[in-house]
């Protein structure tokens, strides 16, 4: 280290508030994506779980395509939901352990927005891959053609809501050493509407009726949770860290 000289220092003022918030948002997303890229195990976990559950069902029930096709929408959605639930616990855990979560709370940036950046990364690395992988698994369950696009769309929309709502539970349990079960109990009731309309959209696509209503409701759920959840996540993080 070199010795600093004693001179009055001018303390740099930040840029325009909006520009500085955007900068901090991008930096937080970039940092989290980079950290996940270096250690892809966590994101891979839920994808592997999703694939395993779906491959086991035809073996366990029956390879009969007609039977599988009727249960496929619900099955795909339940498995994707549980896979997303599995990944929630790690959303804030690393940051809590290494002290960067504490520093995030101490930054002069709006915490709800910063939390939303972390949620966005979580969705990009779990929800979106789950949605993109679902058609392949749909083939295994002989999901009728014509419903694949709706399956991807409903999962992409629905899993975003799951990430946003799940983050509240993850933030509340981040300080607990074994918060996994509590986390599931906290967020599962809130996941039920997403499951109903998500699986409903795929069933409607198979039946040939309009899927617009289901997708619109999924979008509405996402919009509502995006409006309210960031503040709940920020408050939960404050409670978890500082009692």
């Amino acid at each position: 280290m070199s010795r600093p000289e004693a001179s009055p220092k001018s303390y740099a003022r930040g840029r325009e508030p909006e520009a500085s918030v955007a900068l901090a948002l991008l930096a937080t997303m970039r940092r989290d994506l980079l950290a996940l890229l270096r250690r892809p195990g966590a994101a891979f976990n839920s994808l592997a779980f999703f694939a395993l559950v779906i491959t086991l069902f035809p073996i366990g029930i029956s390879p009969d395509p007609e039977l599988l096709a009727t249960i496929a929408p619900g099955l795909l959605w339940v498995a994707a939901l549980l896979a997303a639930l599995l990944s929630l616990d790690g959303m804030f855990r690393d940051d809590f352990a290494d002290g960067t979560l504490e520093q995030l709370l101490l930054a002069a940036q709006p915490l709800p927005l910063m939390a939303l950046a972390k949620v966005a990364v979580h969705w990009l690395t779990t929800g979106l891959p789950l949605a993109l992988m679902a058609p392949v698994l749909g083939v295994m369950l002989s999901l009728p053609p014509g419903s694949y696009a709706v399956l991807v769309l409903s999962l992409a929309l629905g899993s975003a809501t799951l990430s946003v709502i799940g983050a509240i539970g993850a933030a509340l349990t981040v300080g607990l050493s074994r918060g996994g079960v509590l986390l599931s109990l906290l967020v599962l009731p809130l996941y039920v509407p997403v499951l109903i309309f998500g699986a409903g959209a795929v069933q409607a696509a198979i039946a040939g009726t309009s899927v617009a209503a289901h997708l619109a409701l999924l979008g509405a759920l996402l919009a509502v949770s995006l409006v309210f959840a960031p503040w709940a996540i920020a408050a939960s993080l404050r409670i978890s860290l500082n009692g």
Partner: protein
Amino acid sequence: MSLRLQARKLACERDGRWLFRDLDLEIRSGEILRVEGPNGSGKTTLLKILSGQLADYEGSIFWRDAPLRRVHRNFLASLLYLGHAPGVKAALTPLENLAWYQAMAGTGGTEAQRMSALEMVGLRGFEDLPAGQLSAGQQRRVALARLELTPRPLWVLDEPFTAIDREGVADLEARLAAHVRGGGSVVLTTHQALDIPVPMCRVRLGEGKGNVAS
């Protein structure tokens, strides 16, 4: 820039035990406040209260004569807090870690600034290694590089000398002295004997009360 952090009649209770009571503190620019006391006497708690992290206390805190709760965001923009955990992500390199801190401070900053900050703390040549592969002392040094990188008038440092070698301690002492002479102020806890040639205020915690001595 005048700097003034005041605490009046501060009291904090944990599990039915008073950590401190009727504690009056004042930190101005050009001062170091050292919080002393045995393990478990509430040093970290006091630092967290003074840095606005804990709301579970009695008494009032003023930042530049305004209640801390009201000017919290403003206060955070002048604060640099180093806690027990260094706040360094193991998967990222020191440069990437510092880039995040720069962005969170609201100033973009250049790689040259980050490199020179790392050089200051003696981490030249380690800037592209994942921080997880560095030793505990080196990780602490990455955190200390923030003192140089994102200048803030008020430093609150919880055991900053942990895992730092002898030479690093001397350098950090010089850095603290320079910061205070430049009009900044420091609140810190340490079990180390400090050799800093500037006036120092001490608070001794323990036995349920806090004593202030100059």
